[in-house]
């Protein structure tokens, strides 16, 4: 009996050790809830807001940055709009697109139409792309979301935004979670700065963080495009003297389109 108790106590001790380490030895990251559909009023949206919506989907629901990042899993898209015309003329192109906008849509829903050299599925000699059709399966972007991503890609890669905002009263778009869908849009840029604790790392308002560059006069140096990109893709361009990877890359997903634009406008106005 004594051996039974010893063995039981030892087993419990080991299990408690693993349980304790899993609860307190590592960070407890709460996974995002499943995406839910929320209504967006596209009718009253400006093109800038539509592009911002595309950026949010690109960094969030679309899961594009899982692969299209500096890790090299998939080609970078920072020049995609400017080089699309060359791809349409490439002998390896198998699609039917005639314009850059059509090509970008095709690359989202039929990615094997053109596979960038070195990024095909192994063993296919770059004839088959590992990228899924983002309009189906687990990603499931609808037409409005696809168009907003195309607008974002055109805008962020220095091309002309040719996409038209869908003429519908409302369209479904991902809100990033049930809790977020119910959460009201923040009313002031100060509230956004406070909520996301920008001052913990940056000089902004009456806060004086020193980990990141000062934002006190950021509007005097950079335009809105740069600021928008710096928020949703902070490692795209890193300020001199600062290491990449320090700023969270989740703001594109956390901020609502209206909040992102409010914050960009606020930062662009910080000139004195």
């Amino acid at each position: 009996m004594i051996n039974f108790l010893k063995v039981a106590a030892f087993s419990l001790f080991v299990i408690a050790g693993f349980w304790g380490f899993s609860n307190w030895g590592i960070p407890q990251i709460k996974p995002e809830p499943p995406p839910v559909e929320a209504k967006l009023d596209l009718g009253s949206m400006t093109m800038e807001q539509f592009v911002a919506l595309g950026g949010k989907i690109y960094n969030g629901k679309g899961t594009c940055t899982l692969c299209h990042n500096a890790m090299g899993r998939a080609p970078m898209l920072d020049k995609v709009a400017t080089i699309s015309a060359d791809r349409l003329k490439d002998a390896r192109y198998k699609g039917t697109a005639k314009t850059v906008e059509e090509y970008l849509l095709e690359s989202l829903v039929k990615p094997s139409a053109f596979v960038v050299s070195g990024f095909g599925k192994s063993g296919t000699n770059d004839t088959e792309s590992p990228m899924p059709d983002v309009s189906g399966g687990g990603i499931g972007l609808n037409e409005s979301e696809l168009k907003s991503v195309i607008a974002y890609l055109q805008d962020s890669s220095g091309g002309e935004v040719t996409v038209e905002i869908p003429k519908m009263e409302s369209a479904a778009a991902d809100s990033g979670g049930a809790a977020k869908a119910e959460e009201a849009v923040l009313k002031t840029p100060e509230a956004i700065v406070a909520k996301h604790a920008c001052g913990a790392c940056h000089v902004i308002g009456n806060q004086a963080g020193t980990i990141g560059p000062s934002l006190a006069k950021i509007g005097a140096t950079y335009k809105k495009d740069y600021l928008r990109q710096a928020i949703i893709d902070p490692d795209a361009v890193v300020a001199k003297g600062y290491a990449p990877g320090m700023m969270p890359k989740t703001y594109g997903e956390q901020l609502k389109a209206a909040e992102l634009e409010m914050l960009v406008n606020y930062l662009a106005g910080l000139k004195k």
Partner: protein
Amino acid sequence: MLTRNIRIICGAFVLAVSAALMSPMIVHSADTPAQAAAATAPAAPATKDAKAPPSDAKAPSAETKTALFPPAPKLKAEDYPTIAGVNARVAVWLIAQLHLWFGAFVVAVPMFVFMIEAIGMATRDKRYDNMAYEFIKVTITAYSLTAILGGLLCFSLVLFYPHLFNYLSLIFKESMFAYALLFFAESAVLYIYYYGWHWLQGGNKKWVHLTLGLLLNAVGLQLMFLANAWTTFMMSPAAVDASGVFNGDTWAAIHNYLWNPINIHRVVANVAYGGSIVGAYAAFKFLSARKQEERAHYDWMGYNANFIAIAALLPLPFAGYYLTAEIYAYSQQMGITLMGGVFAWLFIIQAVLIGALFLSANYYLWCGMGRSEGAHRYNPRIKYIAIVLVGAFLVWFTPHTLVLTNSELKGLGGPYHKYLGALGIMPAKNTAVNFLIVFTFLSFLFYRRANKIATVSWAAAGNAAQIALFTAGLINITILGVYYGYFTNTVYKVAASVPQVLTTLVIIIISTVIDAFMYRGAKEVAPLRWGRMPDRSQYALFLLAVSFTWLMGLMGYVRSGIRQHWHVSNIFRDSSPDAFTPGLGYAASVVSVGTILFMAMVIFVFWLSTISGRHPTVKGYWKEQAA
């Protein structure tokens, strides 16, 4: 005599192969190779256009297919029954995990029982036969518990997830029927194998018994492969279109993209797991033994169980790597969710658990060197092996990104440590794992030769060759890890893993061959005293069993978790209130509760096998005795 034995072996082989082929014959299969190829294609994440019509002219039209097989249901939260306030997900999770633990055990044990019985037959050493019998005796009770838990799992799925169960049943009805028939076959063969053990002894009878062992394994593996098909279909569905309409080819649905990678991984893992559980049994009996002969017997049994566990543990990381690579190949998104998202930290917990497995297995081997005075000459070297093992464990355990407060982040200058951050990437971890495996093998090599002195004339040259092999191999593993890890593009960082694995395998295989020839006819240095083991060594065997159980539970969570909010990936959405992925702490709590329940049941099984061997004489109770 020889001809007769050959005939019996051939007969056994034919029977086993027939059993293995039974399931594909029962289930529907593709009519033509072209249809089979189309049907085997993964459904949703593949790059092919999922909405494209089937190319085969014989394939039923979309309307006919939809009439025969409906699309995957689109459910709402209220479609999931609630019963007496029970959390459906936790209930099914626990029951499924308990069933899987016992299932893994009862599928694995007959594999090495068969081999041990065959060794006993070949060497005519009765000890092997006795040990094989004792292992299968433990399995009998565990088998009942597996069946009970399997029934409970089926009921709980029907009650809590009726729409999912109905959808899967429509696709897998033939294979589910085959599963039930195979379960009868498994029961029949197992009972004849166990209860006929003493009856079928000697001469041809023993061959018949061994044949039953082979059949038992063939049927058991078939059962596991079928159940794996249902599980992997939920991860990588095949033979269905984008809306979940089944095309009628059950074999294609079974033979989905991740079926074989999971089959391979589970076979290897089950053997290691089975070895660890019977090791715990031997440890329990060793600690409870009152006589020296009993201690010697269970010490020997524990050694063999640990050997089985280590032998399967060594290739297990490779099987796991292959499975992960196939998950990436199937769906890059699923692969990144597995390794780079919320589950990234899970692999730090996994490192702790696998570290515990390797350290406990090695510690047991080192304690075992105390069985003979001849082993003392190797003792000074053990500390160096221990240092390497702990070092490799620490590298594996090092996270890439640190979670820090603002002040800590400021102090460190970033989320990566200046020096330790470099150890957090995969090439460093792959290098560490290969070191763990090679040095564990070295521990085993020392143990194996501890009590012997080679007498062959080329012993010195053989030793030199082995030293050269280990040295060159370890240098190669290090160079591969460093070059691919730090001097190439990110996309090539994991390219080192395959040559590293091959290097490790070359070291193990060539070294084993050299050792086998070199120690043929070796003389013993001192007698090997079975039973001369400290009690603490037996707790290492328990640590092995508990760690393995917990690890299996954790990996079950991530395997299921990478489907995220889908019952069947990208086809059948989970709309239940529990559709969210639970956090690691929560999952650890469920796994811990499951492990406690499982270990309680296992100790109950051990206790049953102990009391079944007791035959006390009660005086004056029976009429004959009173007279």
